[in-house]
Structures are given as structure tokens and as C-alpha cells.
């Protein structure tokens, strides 16, 4: 780290001609990526990425999530457009079906004489 010792011990580097400096830009927005595999019937969430706009998001998704022939179609959605359920509302949202076995077909006994069920 010869160059580091020349610029002090604060870990800062002298700006070099080839090193592009980062302007004070806002970070790129986040996008959620959905990939439909060649045998899949629907798009499945694959992950997320940053991109400046929708067109670049599709291209970045191609680079990040279809490198190994995973897909035949891509969707990108602004992460901000997704409305998620509240994790703290787990009780009221997801625990109500518990104990309600009658919502499952297996709860019911087969009626006599029914052959193909």
C-alpha cells in the first residue's frame, strides 16, 4: 500500500486519472424481477436490482438473472409499486384459517355409493 501511505492513514486514495469519481447522484431505484422459465407457466420472483429506468431494468435483469438459460420472459416492476402485507399483522391475516379444517376437502367423509372421488 505504497500509495496509501502517501496520502495519510485515513484510507483515502489520491484521485487517479482513470478512476471515475462518483458524482453526487441519487441511487438508482429498486426493481423486482420476475422470470418465466421455459417450462414454467407463470413468472416467478427471482430477485431485485437497481436500474435508472424500466428499459435498463429489463436489460440488467437479463444480465443478472438469465445468464444460465433460466428464462424465456422477464418482468420488472418498480419495488415501490408493490404493496406488501404487514408482517406485524400476521395474526389477523394468516392465523385465522387455523382450526378451520372444514375448509379442506379432506375434512369431509365420502358419501356412500360415490365411486370416483
Amino acid at each position, binding site marked *: 500500500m505504497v500509495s496509501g501511505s502517501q496520502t495519510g492513514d485515513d484510507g483515502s486514495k489520491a484521485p487517479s486519472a*482513470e*478512476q*471515475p469519481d*462518483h*458524482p453526487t447522484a441519487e441511487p*438508482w431505484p429498486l426493481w423486482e424481477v420476475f422470470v418465466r*422459465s421455459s417450462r414454467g407457466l407463470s413468472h416467478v420472483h427471482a430477485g431485485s*436490482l*437497481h*436500474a*435508472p*429506468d424500466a*428499459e*435498463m431494468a429489463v*436489460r*440488467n435483469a*437479463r*444480465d*443478472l438473472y438469465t*445468464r*444460465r*438459460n*433460466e428464462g424465456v420472459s422477464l418482468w420488472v416492476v418498480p419495488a415501490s409499486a408493490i404493496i406488501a402485507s404487514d408482517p406485524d399483522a400476521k395474526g389477523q391475516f394468516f392465523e385465522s384459517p387455523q382450526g378451520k379444517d372444514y375448509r379442506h376437502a379432506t375434512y369431509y367423509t365420502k358419501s356412500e355409493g360415490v365411486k370416483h372421488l
Partner: protein
Amino acid sequence: MSESNASATRITPGNALRPEDIAASGVKPTGAVGEYALRLGDDALILAQRLGWWISRAPELEEDVALGNIALDQIGHARSFLTYAGHAWDKTEDDLAYFRGEDEFRSAHLVEQPNGDFARTIARQLVISQYQYDLYSRLVNSADATLAAIAAKAVKEVDYHRDHARQWVLRLALGTDESRRRMIEGILLTWPYVGELFEDDELVTSLDGVAVKPSSLRASFDAEIEALFSEAELEVPDVPASVGGGRQGRHSEHLGYILAEMQVLAREHPGATW
């Protein structure tokens, strides 16, 4: 392909031509065809080496991956072209990539130009990808079946490189004052090296029907760039052309440094594998 090389994550490898297939085919090109393949391969190899520098340095992680992908595509093309060229002189792709000196490389000056900032790299990408796209689009009809097959695989990949560069030219040119200033500067620094790509010489003229005459690609290049620049509100700069000479092995001061970094490991440890 041996099973030990198979990637656990690969879903389908596809059936595109690979350098290993070319090596196994044993088809021996004439010296002239080998020389021509060397030019195409060296352009791709030196460009890939330059682009690789961006990994971990691009403006965003996503662009690290995008430029890295493009570099790897170019490495793939270089491997195919150099494998085929090597058959003319009983050399392997590694012999050609790692054990040739500066004056034996046949790449154009454009690909050895410094990366500069992101905009300058995009300007270089714009030029080389448009050139390679037009070139490979025509090379698929080459009378040489191996060159045609390599081009058929490469043209789809280069089409994406071209799209990537064009998208960024539009965004940088029509973005902020600073991004526009950098895009214009990048184009100015790149344009002196455009002319060399389209120069004919004895070799390509002698390979009628096999090679694509570089001069025949110029009209399409100019039309595509003009249309894009009009959309991006840019002008084609009127700058003097560089001296050129890359196809004859005369290079700028940059190539030596690129080769030193690219070749040092192979030369320090000849025959090493890992």
C-alpha cells in the same frame, strides 16, 4: 465435454459452437484465413481485457455485471477465432494469446484505447459493437464454414452489446449537463480510431468471399450512428484520424501495458493449470 466441467447450475447448455468444438474439428485454415481470424480474435481479446477492468469499478453493481458479461462474450469470440487461427500454424489459443509480442497482435487501435470514464468506455463500445454487428452479420455468409459458424453465434451477442451502448449513449447525452459533457468528450476521444476499422488491405482483398471487406461496412455504420446521434442530439465529430497500423502490428503505447498484465501469469508459470 467431460462431466467434471459441467456446471451444477446450468439448466441447458444449448448447442452453440464452442472453442472446444473448433479445436476438436481439426479443420486447418490457410495462412491467409488464419491471419484474418487473428485480426477478429485480437480485436475481441484486447477489448475484453480492457472491459474487464470495470469489474468492481462501474457506476453501479448492475453495470459491473453488464460490462463483465460483455467482456466474457468477447473472450468467447476471441477463443473461437484464435483457436481456429492457431490451426494454421499448429498453435493453441493460449500460445497466441499469451506468447505473442506486441508487434504480433493484429488488433485495431480502437480496442486498446484507455477506458477513461464510463462515458468514454460507452463511446468505444458504441463504435466497436456497431462495427462487429455489421461485420458478423455479413460473415455468417462466408465461404469459410468455421468463420461463418463463429459469426453466427457472435452476432446475437454483439447485437446485445450494441443495444447496451446505444441505451447508454441516449441516457448520458440527454441526461444531466455533466453526463452530456462527458459523453461528448468520450466521443471526441474515440472518433480518431474509427477510420482504421474500415480500411481494406491486400489480405482482405485476397480473401474475396471468405472475409468481409471492412470498407463495405462503412455506409451502414455511418447511417446507424447518424440516426442515433440525431436522437441523442449529438454530432459526429470532425477530428483527424489516428495513424492506424494495428492490422500490421504497429500499436499505440497502450498495448504493451495491456499485454504485460494479461500475459504475466502464463509467462511466469508456463503450462500451469488450475
